[in-house]
């Protein structure tokens, strides 16, 4: 302790030291030398400006982060293990809750893997594929909107958060109309979809596209040229191509390095090769570039949504194979729940075999030939891969999700070390991790 310049004096309250004089340079120098000035800050796991229950352990030297580590697992839900005790169809109900902001991507990836195992990829109907693409692109927008909204809020900009949630509500209304739920839909099923689009859905989506085209430029006006926004985002969270490759980062992080890698183009699924859209990239490798990419991806998603709407033709949305297709009769009952009365009448009154079949399909499920399959989709966060293993039973033997949030979050240390504490928040927000996906 260097207190040579501080003069003590006795008061009734005890000894008081008064530090005066121009010796502060000395004090600063000795503080900089001292090793015990190293502070370790624990951020989270419950903190207002982190994405969910993420715990950051930062070693800081003044305002500079010298080392950064993540503590995860605070939302580990055991979904992969739970899947092993449910039928393949019931699995969609679980996987949709993994990364709860990208439900349709989880469902689609899982269903693509199951369909690959079943070998029915070619039998998926045209309409089912178009609706899958439609919902995924809407989902891409709602996910990016949350990313931009919460990212803005973490910078202290409440307006952008209100904007983001305003537009997301419109998308959620569409989800609710189509699937009955605002989140966690379990709408995409192995073999197709749970049910067809309800009347009025196409009109509402067209209405939404019109509104969204008007709303999207508002983000540009509010944020893109905003000097404070740029000052906070530019050159923050830097990760170049080599870093992305080594750390396995995909999605907007990879595209912000200038590499236009997108599974929708390189390994198309659900007929993405027939849609007309661009892969936006940036060459800045930073948070600002990722923000711009997300904005542009929303515009491209709108394009794809419009193409989907133009293509929609009436037709079945489930495979014709009755051994897989469940719900067996794609018509809802008058109460909006359960199967249609006609179907119940048929299975209860006229066809014993149909009743047995329905009972077997619902309680036992379909058998999937043994083997393993890997299916990947381009989720808003990157490559979402599903490794599904079947042992020939009616339930998965093992399903593993390679969630992009999990992999991308590893890049946190590389992005934050050497930067400022305040930049950690920006960097993490630009990764856009969702802890439900990270921990599963």
């Amino acid at each position, binding site marked *: 302790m260097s207190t040579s310049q501080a003069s003590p004096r006795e008061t009734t309250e005890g000894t008081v030291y008064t530090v005066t004089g121009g010796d502060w340079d000395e004090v600063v120098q000795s503080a900089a030398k001292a090793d015990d000035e190293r502070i370790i800050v624990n951020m989270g796991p419950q903190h207002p400006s982190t994405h969910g229950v993420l715990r950051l352990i930062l070693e800081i030297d003044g305002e500079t982060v010298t080392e950064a580590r993540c503590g*995860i*697992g605070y939302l*580990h839900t*055991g979904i*992969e*293990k*739970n899947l*092993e*005790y*449910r039928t393949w169809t019931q699995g969609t109900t679980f996987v949709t809750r993994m990364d709860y902001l990208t439900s349709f991507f989880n469902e689609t990836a899982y269903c693509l893997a199951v369909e*690959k*195992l079943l*070998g029915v990829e070619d039998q998926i109907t045209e309409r089912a594929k178009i609706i899958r693409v439609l919902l995924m692109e809407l989902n891409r927008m709602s996910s990016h909107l949350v990313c931009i909204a919460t990212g803005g809020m973490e910078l202290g900009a409440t307006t952008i958060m209100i904007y983001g949630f305003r537009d997301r509500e419109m998308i959620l209304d569409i989800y609710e109309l189509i699937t009955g739920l605002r989140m966690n839909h379990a709408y995409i099923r192995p073999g197709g979809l749970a049910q067809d689009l309800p009347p009025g859905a196409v009109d509402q989506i067209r209405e939404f596209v019109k509104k969204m085209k008007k709303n999207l430029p508002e983000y540009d006006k509010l944020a893109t040229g905003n000097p404070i926004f740029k000052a906070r985002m530019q050159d923050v969270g830097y990760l170049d191509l080599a870093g992305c*490759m*080594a*750390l*396995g*980062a*995909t999605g907007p992080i990879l595209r912000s390095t200038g*590499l236009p*890698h997108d599974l929708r183009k*390189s*390994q198309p699924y659900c007929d993405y090769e027939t849609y007309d859209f661009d892969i936006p990239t940036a060459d800045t490798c930073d948070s600002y570039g990722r923000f711009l990419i997300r904005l542009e991806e929303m515009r491209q998603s709108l394009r794809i949504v419009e193409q989907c709407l133009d293509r929609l033709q009436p037709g079945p949305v489930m495979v014709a194979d009755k051994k897989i297709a469940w719900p067996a009769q794609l018509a809802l009952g008058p109460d909006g729940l359960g199967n249609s009365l006609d179907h119940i009448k048929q299975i209860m009154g006229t066809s014993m075999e149909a009743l047995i079949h329905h009972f077997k399909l619902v*309680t*036992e*499920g379909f058998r999937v030939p*043994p*083997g*393993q*399959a*890997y299916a*990947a989709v381009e989720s808003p966060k990157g*490559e979402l*891969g599903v*490794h599904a*293993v079947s*042992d*020939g*039973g*009616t*339930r998965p*033997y*093992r399903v*593993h999700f*390679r969630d992009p949030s*999990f*992999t991308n*979050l*590893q890049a946190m240390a590389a992005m934050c070390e050497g930067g400022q504490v305040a930049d950690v928040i920006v960097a993490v927000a630009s990764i856009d991790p969702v802890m439900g996906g990270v*921990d599963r």
Partner: protein
Amino acid sequence: MSDANGTNGADPEQDPGASNLPGQRGEGEEIRVQRGMFGANNGGDTSGYGGLVRSVRLPGATNRPYGGWFDEVADELEGALEEQGLLPDNAIEKTIVDRGELTFHIEREHLLRVARTLRDDPALRFELCTGVSAVHYLHDKGRELHAVYHLRSITHNRLIRLEVSAPDSDPHIPSLVPVYPTNDWHERETYDFFGIVFDGHPALTRIMMPDDWQGHPQRKDYPLGGIAVEYKGAQIPAPDQRRSYS
């Protein structure tokens, strides 16, 4: 396992591997023999199907030609390994082509070398590893634990799978972190859930479960751990305790 040696009337109790039993279809590698139905093995199966014997077979090794670019990748890999003085047959246990996917089963001691070759060889160039997934084949004696890696080549737009197995008694597999740093968390996760020890990993600690957790929860011999659900006047057992089809 005895394969294809059964005569008519093989006794499933004596010779579960006999190939002429009903419920045994196709070729492939047997990983388990299943008895009865409804998953009940404590005498609760009153369905009359208790004597049913069914063998579970995963797709077996494929012979050349594999088709498409698979042959090219296999040739390049074998050539590159030979150049390094490693006999491909020693490193690659078998090659499987199934459902349009190429899988190399790699001997675990050569995994690191194979992965490095796959990444660095310009004709292979699998620069992106999508992490490791593990599968616990509880009844496949001697090779219970499988680690499965999916490698993606952005340069050539290809995807392959590497599979490595280890016995439960010696759950060691070399770490791929030196080649693919992205596997850091993935290997920690796999260690956490399956107890596979990745030798050479910089800090192999638990990642998902609390640090003081006992056991590795996603192994097949670890119970799901649910509780019974109570309703008015009735109780439904935890999901893993229920009667089920299997």
